[in-house]
């Protein structure tokens, strides 16, 4: 029989020795400049933000609280300050196609300046243009043009009137036109008198009138021509006057923006438009009235001069480098931008001034950080972002337009070229799902920035950790931490990883612990945070969360949940499970029982039969059944029917960490050898009977220890664990102390034989040269029992078939009746 010795107490809890630190408190330590334990991620970030190729956007993946956002932000901020400031982008009116606003790209800070310049220009023109048109000079020149026309008109009509008069004919106005009337003594001749006139005279009059009329028609044509010319002259005069007013200030602006061709073009268009619409400047802008009540500004609609405004979409006047933008609400509109509308007399109207920027506009030329989960939760935001990244342009379209729900397109702003590096931050699951489900994802987010939640434990890293504690304490304005406190923080950090050789870099959890320890130090009026304060913070954290653990332990103590910690029993073993609720996990012992009877070689997992067991648990049970068959019944049929169950388990069971315990219970039942109830077992087995590591070993041990301790430690109690889990041990101080005092034992096992020996106190037994197990060993007892069962099965061999036949015959007979 191999003897498995319990582990020495020092292996149960790998403490951190405070004497390794040569500082009194963390106040003496320098701030930590680097990111702790994230070498892989840091390397990926540095690569990702430096490579200037298409599709090299970053996805920072890892559990929350590992400092992804802070780290990314820190690197981006650093990098951004060394990069050129992004250009300003403006939307201005497109005078030819007002529904397609134009973009203007300007050097940083120039957008606002251009906007102010344009405002000032329009203000100036609103004063200068009316003034120019009221000037004596203009009025005289306009009057000249009008007078000329009047004179031409007067002269033409005067001449024809004179001509008519010479023939005793008058040109008179009728209600709807003009007519020539023959006169007699200055009056229009009476029709009766006209008839009396000699035929010749009448004909003469008729001919005269006809000739005059033709001339009159020609004159009217001519007059209309002159009128057009006069209007043209006045218009040309207006243009000249407008030009004289507009030209000078615009020349100054053109000079100022001479290097920006887009702006110069725009200014030329403005000049042209002002000249063409100079009348708008000449009349005072008055609010229209309805029934004598002036309409509010919002209902009047865009004033005429809005079209000369400059809508600065991205302003970098105060930037000190490339922009780094974090958009915490990445809706479609917040990313891509939107076009707002104003209700005007019941209709919705818009113009280029109502184009609002999105995060992509603000981040253009720099970096945009987004939360992947938030982004995916917003309808169409992910699609919108991808489209922008693929086309390298931002098209502002409303969702209605994108989905073709709205056919009345109000504006189609010119797209803005996009040069941005996007950093998505999210959980690992999201990254892998996106990679698998979205074919575009891999093309657009080529840089995987994987944040780890732990780092290797070493003297060097311990010191880094101490500096991290110091840095966080300073940043958060906490008391400094003394040596022992830092050591205790490191121990806790180790425990959080569930691995004695690793340190947690889950900064959120560590920072919380530091803040809480600082609080308790404050309560205790300590100048520096001590190990006791840290312990108090840990205990308080646990106490706040362990209501359920307390309740379960009470139930066990009271005997409601049946767990024995003394005595022996056949086919019954203490298994261990872990219950994780929120941020807190604890171990709970569970009674596992096994019963065997004659059968067809099946091991029934009762949990699985009732769908309370998960697939991994079922896998564990099938493995142990296979082990059983292979080891003991290789040559004859396995003729048992065994059932395994987690007693008093009313919810699901998952994981294979109980398979060792289940196998031990089964072996005990087969060998009919009792199992010590003072021990609990955890570990999974493979088909060869080797014990494999499991998770949550610390919590499981502590769960059993707490029950034993509550009932009084006998010195017999302990837990059997896989050898491979020894390196994960970071047990509570009290467990380590009990082990030191020989009151509680942790047995590391490699095989199921070692476990069953510890549990039954009987050697497991190994095959001798002839392939037999030693007499009285567990294995021999198991084998004998299985052979017996097989023989019984063989004895019954024929009868079941016969019985089945008989039953069929009866049925047939019944059928015939």
């Amino acid at each position, binding site marked *: 029989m191999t003897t498995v010795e319990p582990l020495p107490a020092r292996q149960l809890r790998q403490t951190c020795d405070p004497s390794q630190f040569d500082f009194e408190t963390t106040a003496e330590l320098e701030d930590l400049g680097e990111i702790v334990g994230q070498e892989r991620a840091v390397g990926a970030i540095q690569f990702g933000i430096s490579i200037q190729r298409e599709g090299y956007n970053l996805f920072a993946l890892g559990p929350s609280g590992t400092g992804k956002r802070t780290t990314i932000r820190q690197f981006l901020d650093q990098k951004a300050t060394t990069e050129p400031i992004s250009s300003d982008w403006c939307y201005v009116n497109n005078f030819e196609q007002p529904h397609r606003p134009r973009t203007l790209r300007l050097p940083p800070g120039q957008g606002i300046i251009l906007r102010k310049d344009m405002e000032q220009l329009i203000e100036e023109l609103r004063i200068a243009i009316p003034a120019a048109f009221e000037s004596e000079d203009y009025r005289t020149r306009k009057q000249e043009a009008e007078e000329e026309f*009047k004179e031409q008109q007067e002269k033409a009509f005067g001449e024809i009137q004179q001509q008519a008069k010479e023939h005793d004919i008058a040109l*008179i106005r009728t209600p709807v036109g003009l007519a*020539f009337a023959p006169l007699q003594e200055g*009056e229009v001749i009476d029709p009766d008198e006209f008839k009396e006139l000699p035929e010749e005279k009448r004909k003469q009059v008729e001919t005269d009138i*006809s000739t005059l009329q033709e001339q*009159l028609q020609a004159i*009217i044509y001519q007059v209309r021509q002159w009128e057009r010319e006069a209007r043209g002259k006045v218009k040309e005069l207006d243009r000249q006057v407008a030009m004289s007013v507009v030209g000078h200030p615009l020349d100054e602006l053109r000079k100022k923006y001479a290097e920006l061709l887009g702006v110069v073009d725009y200014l030329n268009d403005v000049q042209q438009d002002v000249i063409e619409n100079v009348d708008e400047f000449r009349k005072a802008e008055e609010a229209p009235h309805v029934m004598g009540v002036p309409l509010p500004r919002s209902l009047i609609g865009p004033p005429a001069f809005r079209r000369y405004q400059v809508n600065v979409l991205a302003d970098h006047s105060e930037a000190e480098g490339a922009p780094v933008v974090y958009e915490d609400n990445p809706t479609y509109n917040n990313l891509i931008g939107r076009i707002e509308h104003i209700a005007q007399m019941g209709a919705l109207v818009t113009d280029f001034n109502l184009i609002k920027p999105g995060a992509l506009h603000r981040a253009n030329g720099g970096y945009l950080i987004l939360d992947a989960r938030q982004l995916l939760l917003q309808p169409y935001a992910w699609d919108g972002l991808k489209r922008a990244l693929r086309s390298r342009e931002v098209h502002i379209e409303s969702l209605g337009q994108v989905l073709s729900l709205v056919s009345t397109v109000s504006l189609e702003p010119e797209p803005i070229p996009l040069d941005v590096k996007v950093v998505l931050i999210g959980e690992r699951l999201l990254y892998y799902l996106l990679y698998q489900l979205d074919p575009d994802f891999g093309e657009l987010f080529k840089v995987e920035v994987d944040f780890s939640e732990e780092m290797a434990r070493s003297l060097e890293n311990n010191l880094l950790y101490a500096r991290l504690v110091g840095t966080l304490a300073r940043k958060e304005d906490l008391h400094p931490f003394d040596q022992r406190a830092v050591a205790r923080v490191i121990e806790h950090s180790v425990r959080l990883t569930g691995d004695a050789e690793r340190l947690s870099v889950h900064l959120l959890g560590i920072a919380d612990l530091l803040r809480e320890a600082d609080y308790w130090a404050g309560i205790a009026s300590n100048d520096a945070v001590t190990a006791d304060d840290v312990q108090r913070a840990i205990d308080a954290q646990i106490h706040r969360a362990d209501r359920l653990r307390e309740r379960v332990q009470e139930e066990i103590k009271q005997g409601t949940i049946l767990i024995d910690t003394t005595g022996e029993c056949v086919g019954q073993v203490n298994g261990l499970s872990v219950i994780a609720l929120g941020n807190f996990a604890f171990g709970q012992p569970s009674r596992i029982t096994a019963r065997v009877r004659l059968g067809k070689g099946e091991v029934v997992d009762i949990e699985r039969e009732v769908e309370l067991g998960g697939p991994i648990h079922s896998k564990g049970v099938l493995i142990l059944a296979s082990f059983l068959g292979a080891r003991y019944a290789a040559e004859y049929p396995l003729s048992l029917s065994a059932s395994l169950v987690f007693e008093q388990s009313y919810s699901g069971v998952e994981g294979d960490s109980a398979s060792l315990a289940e196998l031990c219970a089964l072996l005990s039942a087969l060998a009919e050898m009792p199992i010590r109830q003072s021990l609990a077992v955890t570990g999974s087995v493979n088909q060869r009977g080797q014990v494999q590591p499991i998770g949550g070993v610390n919590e499981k041990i502590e769960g059993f220890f707490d029950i034993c301790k509550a009932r009084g430690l006998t010195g017999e109690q302990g837990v059997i664990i896989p050898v491979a889990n020894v390196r994960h041990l970071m047990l509570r101080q009290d467990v380590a102390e009990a082990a030191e005092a020989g009151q509680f034992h942790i047995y590391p096992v490699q095989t199921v034989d070692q476990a069953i020996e510890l549990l039954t106190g009987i050697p497991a037994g190994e095959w001798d040269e002839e392939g037999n197990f030693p007499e009285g060993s567990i294995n021999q007892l198991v084998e004998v029992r299985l052979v017996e069962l097989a023989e019984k099965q063989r004895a019954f061999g024929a009868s079941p078939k016969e019985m089945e036949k008989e039953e069929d015959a009866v049925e047939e007979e019944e059928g015939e009746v």
Partner: protein
Amino acid sequence: MSEQDDEWTIRRILVALDTSRHSLAALEAAAELAVSLEAELQGLFVEDVNLLRLAGLPVAREVLYPFVTAARLDRARMERELRAQAAQARRALVAACERRHVKWSFRVVRGEVTPEVLAAALEADLLSLGKASRPLVRRVRLGSTARAAAAQATHSVLLLQRDVGIEPPVVVTYDGSPTARQALMMATRLAQKEGGYLTVLILASTPDAAQRLRAQAADFLRGQRLVVRYRRLVDAGVAMLTREVLAEGSGVLVLSGTILPPEAFQVLLDEVDCPVLLVR
């Protein structure tokens, strides 16, 4: 103001209406005046017999203006057109009066326009009419009816041209005559309604006379709550008067009918654009 002044008043205002914009301006001004004088408005539309005669002629043709199409004229159509014009004139009168709650009447007579208007004016205290009917040319010259009214009407005449209403400042001539006092009284009424600014042009050949007339006018205007400016005109000639009126930027000119010979009035009226009220 003396009792004699109080007796002189305007109770009936005759508006000679055609459908020109000048006559509409005359209608608006007359209606405004009727409100402040509590007078009654009489609208008159004259169906021009010359037109009817013309329409009866076999040679009659008209050129529709400004469309340049020629059409044959006949009497029935002319009658219809004149009736339509009369109805249009009546509608304008009714609208102007009812808006201001002014008592009104309207009649249509057939005859030669100028004699009919002058005859009807005899029954009214004031004749309001446009400076021209519907002129062929843009330049507004005094039409024949306006010319006759300015020269021959026995009562006061108010002449207006299109798009110009009665506006401040009010400019009035004063030479001490009874009609000048009446003119001053009318000017006072108008000035009170139009912002309280009045310019009195004193027509006097000597400084002493000017002083005396100014004192008279000031005495007359005492207690009227007006801002009054006095200017002396040495010569009451048309040229001088025109220059002064233009210099003052007159909104409305009130003249006593005795200061100028009738032909001179016509010249003056040709020169100034503002409404002119001849007080007789």
